[in-house]
């Protein structure tokens, strides 16, 4: 417990001083790393914790980004107020989308979630209600103002994104160490046993989707701010595959695992932007090797970390 805390403090300390030592492209990478980690952690609520095969999570990320973009550019609502709206809307979508398909078994659910992602993507491309801007997307999204500070410089956005990551990690930690997280895990491990002990399957599964959708949407808003623009291909099915892969490669239901997964799947390829053509060939093979060497993920989740008063010999 203590040891973990030390690691996390070290991790965030590095994160805080990091932008002062690297060039600006790496600050951007750091920001996007934080946001992708948030999305991956939110995907993990559904995929890793509740064990539902969700391969359409970029939908919720996109709902957040587009909600903020539309509300800000069309209705001139300050970004900071779009955050709760985006979260609520995305969570609502999560509920509506998952409700009818929640009873589907593993791979069928996977296909249904892919389907929702593709429907969402086509809706963006077709300029739904004349709001999404079609293939061009939406440009000119403003910056949030918090306590009178304008979050528009590169570093300000970086710290804001990491603050969001910190909040998300706390929420995920809280989920893990509570009735809520245990219920998700029970459902993943054995649905029948979980139901037989009073876990309301439908409620918790839909709740997992709603929570996952809400958190992903939060990352989406900041993402829209970071690039001052949103466009459809950032939220397509390929992107969902990335988030899915992050969770599995890193270690389902493991916070450090998912951070490492994001690092491996998003940051590592950044080193090779200059030797471009072969990098995804090598990367594909690396993915296979990683799974073979670490089938449970790079840093698998550990269970059995219990409150002190339980494990201490009395």
């Amino acid at each position: 417990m203590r040891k973990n805390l030390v690691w996390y403090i070290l991790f965030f300390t590095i994160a805080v001083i990091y932008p002062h030592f690297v060039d600006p492209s790496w600050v951007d990478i750091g920001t996007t790393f934080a946001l992708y980690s948030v999305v991956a952690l939110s995907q993990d609520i559904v995929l890793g914790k509740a064990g539902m095969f969700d391969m359409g999570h970029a939908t919720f990320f996109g709902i957040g980004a587009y909600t903020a973009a539309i509300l800000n550019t069309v209705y001139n609502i300050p970004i900071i107020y779009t955050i709760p709206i985006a979260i609520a809307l995305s969570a609502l979508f999560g509920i509506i989308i998952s409700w009818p398909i929640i009873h589907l078994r593993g791979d069928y659910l996977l296909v249904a979630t892919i389907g929702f992602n593709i429907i969402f993507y086509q809706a963006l491309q077709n300029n739904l209600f004349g709001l999404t801007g079609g293939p061009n997307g939406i440009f000119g999204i403003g910056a949030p103002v918090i306590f009178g500070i304008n979050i528009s410089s590169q570093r300000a956005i970086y710290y804001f994104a990491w603050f969001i990551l910190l909040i998300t990690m706390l929420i995920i930690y809280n989920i893990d160490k509570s009735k809520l997280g245990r219920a998700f895990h029970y459902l993943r491990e054995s649905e029948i046993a979980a139901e037989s002990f009073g876990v309301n399957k439908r409620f918790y599964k839909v709740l997992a989707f709603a929570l996952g959708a809400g958190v992903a949407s939060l990352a989406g808003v900041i993402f829209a701010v970071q690039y001052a623009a949103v466009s459809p291909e950032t939220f397509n099915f390929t992107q969902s595959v990335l988030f899915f892969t992050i969770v599995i490669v890193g270690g389902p239901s493991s916070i450090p695992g998912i951070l490492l997964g994001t690092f491996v799947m998003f940051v590592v390829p950044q080193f090779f932007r200059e030797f471009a053509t072969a990098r995804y060939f090598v990367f594909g093979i690396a993915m296979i090797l990683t799974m073979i060497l670490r089938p449970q993920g790079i840093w698998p989740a550990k269970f059995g970390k219990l409150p002190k008063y339980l494990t201490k010999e009395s």
Partner: protein
Amino acid sequence: MEIFLQQIVNGLAIGSIYALVAIGYTMVYGVMKLINFAHGDLVALAAYVGLTVLMQAFGMHLSNLWAVILMFTVTAMFISLFGIILERLAYRPLRKAPRLSAVVSALGASLAIENGIMLIWGPNIKVFPSNIFPSTRWHISGVVINSTQIAILLLSIILMIALYIFINRTKIGTAIRASAIDQDAAKLMGINVNGIIIAIFALGSFLGSIGGLFIGIYYRELYFQMGWIYGLNAFIAAIIGGIGNIPGAMLGGMLLGIFNVLIAGYVSNTWSEALTFALLIIILIIKPTGILGERVAEKV
């Protein structure tokens, strides 16, 4: 009416290609419970290998017919072997691992094959020569049918019937079905499950390679990411039919081909993908394991 018939004819041609590719997904899934996301890229690889073989054959001044025969045999053999090697290297080490780890391994294989094609054949499109099949067109009361479509449809149907007989009438076929129902029990009955898995990968890759060559002959355009689109469609076809069920994959492929043309032709072209997926989701909501998939009651 002729417009409708025209759409159906075209839908069946593309549907039969989906069906051939879908069988590869469904067979692997049936025995290993693995979504082999690399299967589509194998199909694309087949088309590229086929084109290379064909060009070599023309270079050796073979006649059209012999060149095509050579293309089919060499490609089918190469891709079947490739499928076997893929299983050995990327999936077998993960057989005891969590299911999704194998899925990620498949995604990695897909990425590697796709980018491997780009490295070998370049990022630009490649075009099949147009004169390899005699292309005759028939106008039957306003409906245009060409000889390539008929050849594809007939060959696909023959292959599927052959597969059906193989699966249902031969010893290996029975062993494959047994392994699909219960791998452990099959093992106890003395079935060499490793051998069966090699067989299904060879067979699925073989049919996929034929599908890839058909794509090359029919559409004539190859690009390195094509496998992803055909793979996804074929995977959906397998799901519609009930994944794991071989006749289901055939049915699903044909249905998807027809859905595609009817939605694009009669409902909305710009929303055709969204509507296809909406239809798929509705099918799943009503029939959670696809049309021919059986609802497996979990033993408690």
